[in-house]
């Protein structure tokens, strides 16, 4: 059996088991609430597993070793602590959301009911760009990994991965995602602990440590300035992603009220170990002076192919593919939720019945999958930049989400303009004085090198959004009655 055939066989076996698990439970979907929030009765085990599987993305497996390679120990710590803390910080907010918006389905519901039309539209555009960009990276990563490790054509890798996920997500929605997430998170946690042990068994920890100390001693230092900056700022960017992303809001609405906080805390703690385990693979490359023809981003696959052999590569593929598929499934369902709940039911057809909204969600999921395949096949080169660039938008939305959920006197107009200013100035800092709009730049100022960068842009964005939102609300308070949110019913429920 050739190595490529083995790869295809692994994909088919794993994919078939996920389709079986997803479709088996899909018969329980009888209404929109089942499709989007899993019936709202999810417990601790299933809840922690789905949050973990969603948050362990292809980036967690590939970019945490890159952080370790670039920033050393502080890079791995920053990646792990940042992502874990972000999920744990969402725990109290999730409990609050469940209390003020018990019938909520998406983050769009919150922005529409808590703020005004202009805030809702601005947020909807930012969210769709963010979620579709994230979905695209998962599709592309699946194609690249299958191509790199097994020589499977890129287009085939993208299409088969998206096709498998689409098969169970379009039919079963969140209920199918919960079922497959549980299997995938078990697989991820099993492999993620076997892997570093296998690699270090081959590489010898003493050799790796001595190599790091002599070849790149800065990677072992805890006062490395660039590493410290990464450690201190990355939690802000991750918190922005978690607080803004619809997949986390859906899970907050899906969980039982009495287990909400502990589920997010357990998931955050469990997640920390994944990037720590995979991130340490980078130290092998540093300590053995390994050649990286594909640059720092290829450090994990290079270490695996050099030290783990054929069997190791197969395990690595299974790990990575489980991470990619679980995130892709959650995102497809999350974006479909925005489409069916916020666009179809609140804009296109306000009189739609629950069954019509459910059908719109299934059609929307297929359309989203087609968009993902069509754009991923183009292999746009700016995807990683897109995600970093979006960190500035994520940081700008942190305070409007938190303040809007807790405080009664937040001024919507002040918040709107604060977000606009925060993103604009953040992008100028990101571009070193130029307004960086990703595909082109508008020259405005010339900043010194120390004042620019993606991490600096996120700090500036958060600071302006926070100061603007809180100050405008202090000067021109706009009282809000949270009971209007608590008593709200989705339109499709009132027409069913």
């Amino acid at each position, binding site marked *: 059996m050739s190595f490529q055939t083995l790869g295809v066989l692994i994909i088919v076996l794993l994919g078939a088991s996920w389709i079986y698990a997803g479709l088996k439970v899909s018969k329980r979907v009888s209404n929109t609430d089942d499709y989007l929030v899993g019936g709202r009765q999810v417990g601790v085990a299933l809840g922690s597993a789905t949050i973990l599987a969603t948050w362990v993305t292809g980036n967690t497996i590939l970019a945490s070793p890159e952080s370790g390679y670039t920033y050393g120990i502080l890079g791995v710590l920053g990646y792990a602590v940042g992502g874990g803390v972000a999920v744990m*910080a969402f725990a*109290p*907010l999730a409990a*609050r959301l469940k*209390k*003020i918006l018990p019938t909520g389905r998406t983050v769009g519901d919150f922005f529409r009911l808590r703020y005004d039309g202009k805030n809702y539209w601005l947020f909807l555009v930012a969210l769709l760009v963010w979620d579709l960009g994230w979905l695209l990276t998962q599709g592309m990563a699946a194609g690249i990994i299958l191509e790199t490790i097994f020589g499977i054509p890129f287009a085939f890798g993208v299409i088969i991965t998206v096709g498998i996920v689409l098969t169970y997500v379009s039919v079963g929605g969140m209920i199918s995602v919960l079922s497959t997430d549980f299997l995938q998170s078990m697989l991820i946690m099993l492999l993620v602990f076997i892997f570093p042990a296998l690699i270090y068994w081959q590489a010898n920890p003493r050799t790796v440590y001595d190599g790091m100390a002599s070849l790149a001693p800065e990677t072992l230092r805890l006062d490395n*300035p*660039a590493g*410290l*900056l990464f*450690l*201190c*700022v990355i*939690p*802000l960017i991750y*918190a922005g992603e978690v607080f803004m992303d619809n997949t986390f809001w859906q899970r907050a609405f899906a969980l039982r009220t009495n287990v909400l906080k502990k589920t997010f805390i357990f998931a955050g703690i469990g997640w920390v170990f994944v990037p720590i385990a995979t991130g340490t693979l980078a130290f092998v490359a540093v300590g053995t002076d390994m050649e990286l023809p594909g640059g720092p981003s290829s450090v994990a696959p290079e270490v695996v192919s050099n030290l783990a052999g054929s069997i190791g590569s197969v395990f690595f593929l299974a790990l990575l593919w489980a991470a990619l598929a679980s995130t892709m499934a959650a995102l497809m369902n999350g974006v479909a939720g925005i489409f069916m709940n916020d666009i179809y039911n609140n804009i296109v057809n306000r009189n739609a019945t629950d069954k019509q909204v459910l059908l719109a969600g299934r059609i929307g999921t297929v359309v989203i999958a087609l968009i993902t395949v069509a754009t991923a096949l183009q292999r746009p080169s700016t995807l990683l930049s897109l995600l970093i660039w979006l960190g500035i938008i994520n940081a700008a939305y*942190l*305070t409007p989400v*938190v*303040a809007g*959920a*807790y*405080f*009664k006197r937040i001024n919507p107009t002040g918040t709107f303009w604060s977000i606009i200013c925060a993103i604009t100035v953040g992008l100028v800092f990101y571009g070193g004085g130029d307004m960086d709009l990703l595909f082109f730049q508008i020259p405005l100022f010339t900043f010194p090198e*120390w*004042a620019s960068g993606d*991490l*600096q842009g996120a*700090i500036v964005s*958060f*600071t302006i959004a*926070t100061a603007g939102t809180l100050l405008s609300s202090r000067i021109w308070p706009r009282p809000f009655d*949270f*009971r209007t949110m*608590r008593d709200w019913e989705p339109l499709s429920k009132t027409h069913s």
Partner: protein
Amino acid sequence: MTPEYLWAIAGVLCLIVLFTMIAVGSAASRNDSLDHAELDDDTTKGAGQ
């Protein structure tokens, strides 16, 4: 002290502000008028009058 250290301190301050907002909000919302019991009391009083 290099600029990276100063930006790192700014990052920590941002996180402190964020967590303070969540902590203050959580503490304040424990006694807000959203509780079902309190609302039900209001409703009962209204009905009685």
